[in-house]
């Protein structure tokens, strides 16, 4: 709520920023409306995170099946080394290769966002006790039934934590993506930094920071709800 109010009401804060920075001619970023920037930012994060979740969880499941288990150590090494790459580096290399604009940003965010999700999925599936799996087998459940009704629900909290890390990183990287020509909430920050307009920087930074905190809280709530649901499930 506060996030929307701030995005909508930013132009109204003109007098405040002109009081803080009397030397600036235009104390409020006006090239795009803050609501548009916010929506573009969210669209970019969703556009990269949704495929990243599908790919990451899918790969995590594949690597824990009997036919994929052999590849697991290798993929884990690759993911570990991939995470020493800073997200900016992925973005900076993608831009000259693919061209400037939204596309390199989406691809860089997708690639980098995969790693924590894959790691979360692998770690989550590892927490499933072998006894639960065997019990389900004993009850005559199919392998597919075991995956959907036993393994994934039990692994869900850790997978969700991986997705949370990935989305929060992507919100930050999407802000930096404005350096490669994508329009996001980072645009006022970058424009402000290069034009010595601190008011723009603060406006962009406030919204980006708030967006990240709101998203994090949403995940917190989802995790708690998941806990309740699981608690109710085991009680029955």
């Amino acid at each position: 709520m506060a996030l929307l109010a701030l995005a909508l009401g930013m132009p109204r804060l003109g007098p405040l920023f002109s009081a803080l920075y009397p030397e600036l001619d235009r104390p409020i970023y006006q090239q795009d409306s803050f609501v548009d920037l916010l929506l573009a930012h969210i669209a970019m994060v969703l556009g990269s995170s949704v495929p990243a979740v599908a790919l990451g969880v899918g790969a995590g499941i594949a690597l824990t099946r009997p036919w994929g288990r052999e590849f697991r150590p290798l993929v884990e090494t690759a993911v570990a080394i991939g995470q020493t790459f800073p997200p900016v580096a992925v973005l900076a290399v993608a831009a000259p290769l693919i061209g400037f604009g939204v596309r390199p940003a989406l691809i860089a965010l997708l690639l980098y966002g995969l790693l924590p999700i894959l790691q979360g999925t692998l770690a989550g599936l590892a927490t499933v006790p072998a006894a639960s799996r065997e019990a389900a087998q004993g009850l005559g459940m199919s392998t597919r039934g075991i995956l959907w009704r036993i393994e994934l629900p039990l692994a869900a909290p850790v997978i969700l934590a991986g997705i949370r890390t990935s989305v929060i990183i992507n919100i930050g990287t999407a802000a930096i993506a404005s350096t490669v020509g994508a329009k996001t909430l980072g645009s006022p920050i970058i424009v402000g930094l290069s034009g010595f307009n601190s008011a723009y920087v603060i406006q962009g930074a406030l919204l980006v920071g708030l967006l990240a905190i709101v998203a994090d809280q949403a995940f917190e709530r989802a995790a708690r709800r998941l806990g309740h649901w699981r608690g109710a499930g085991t009680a029955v």
Partner: protein
Amino acid sequence: MPPFSQRKHDRVLLALTLLMLASLYAWPLLTWAPNRLLTGHALPWSRLANGWHPLLWLPGMLLLPAWALRPRRLVWLATALAAAALLAGLCGLAGAVAAEEAARTPFGRTSFGAAFWSMALLCWLTAAHCLTRLFPRHSSRSIAHLLLWAPLGLLLASGRMDELSVLKEYANRQDVFDDALWRHVQILLATLLPAIATGWPLGLLAFRRPALRQALFAVLNIIQTIPSIALFGLLIAPLAWLAQTSPWLARAGVGGIGMAPAVIALALYALLPIVRSMVAGLEQVPAAVVEAAAGMGLSQRQILLRVELPLALPVVLAGIRITAVQTVGMASVAALIGAGGFGAIMFQGLAGSALDLVLLGVIPVVALAVVLDALFSFFESLLEIRP
């Protein structure tokens, strides 16, 4: 499915080999452009024929059938060596071709193509796959990796690759590069040392007082959530104000932009993993050990220094490793607020859309992160061996 040791062939190696062939088929190994700003086009295979090719087909011949051999130590060793030799051969070939092209057109630029980077990654993964099986212990594996990749470093140092575009960018900007390296290390140290000096005592306090722990982690989690670029931006105003109101701070280098806001923000980020690792490290010390120490008449201070902290050390060290890697990466974003470092080279390259200049900024950042990660992992693995 039979377990790995009884299987007749190695499907992981097969997949890696197929990926190598596919990337060589689909992408250019080297690209060439008339000058440093234009986008390169692929150098045809015919131009790549050079004296280095025995170093390519010999290990290539070894790698191609390796997946079909029965997995055993000799095969793994040979495959790892072949992968390293193949990558060295590719580097040598690239350097030699670049020198040939440079003799033809002085302003032309020969750069690594997509196939080179994917081959480098795949060679490394192949070697890592084999070394993991050869050396189950982490510390001896690290040393094996070091020996395997050292020839590449020698090749780079020998100057045989100097005509490649990235290294030409380096030669043109050696001063800038050295300054950036120094500045990056400076930012790293200026962040880590104060963060450790405050983070460890805070972690100890938080471990002893659960109420404090909750509040502290709530605050640190929120800080960690805020994207780095936003935190840098938000620190500009208060620091500029501080520098205005107290001139002695401004004289000490504190201001809205530059190193001060970067180091403050990075240290704030660093606090969470450092505090968390201290708490986690102390928590995993078995209560029985602490009780036994108390029973032997050790004072609380002695228990802390001689029992709890030494047992917490591996986890604490892992925390520093994670923090150092994170800080190296985030410090490159700090270039946006004028803190310098490799990020400045990276963003300068982005602004001019010169890929090789971007790489000149990106490669050392990644290398620094990988080296720090490997170094701390090595220390951690040394601690683990001790009974």
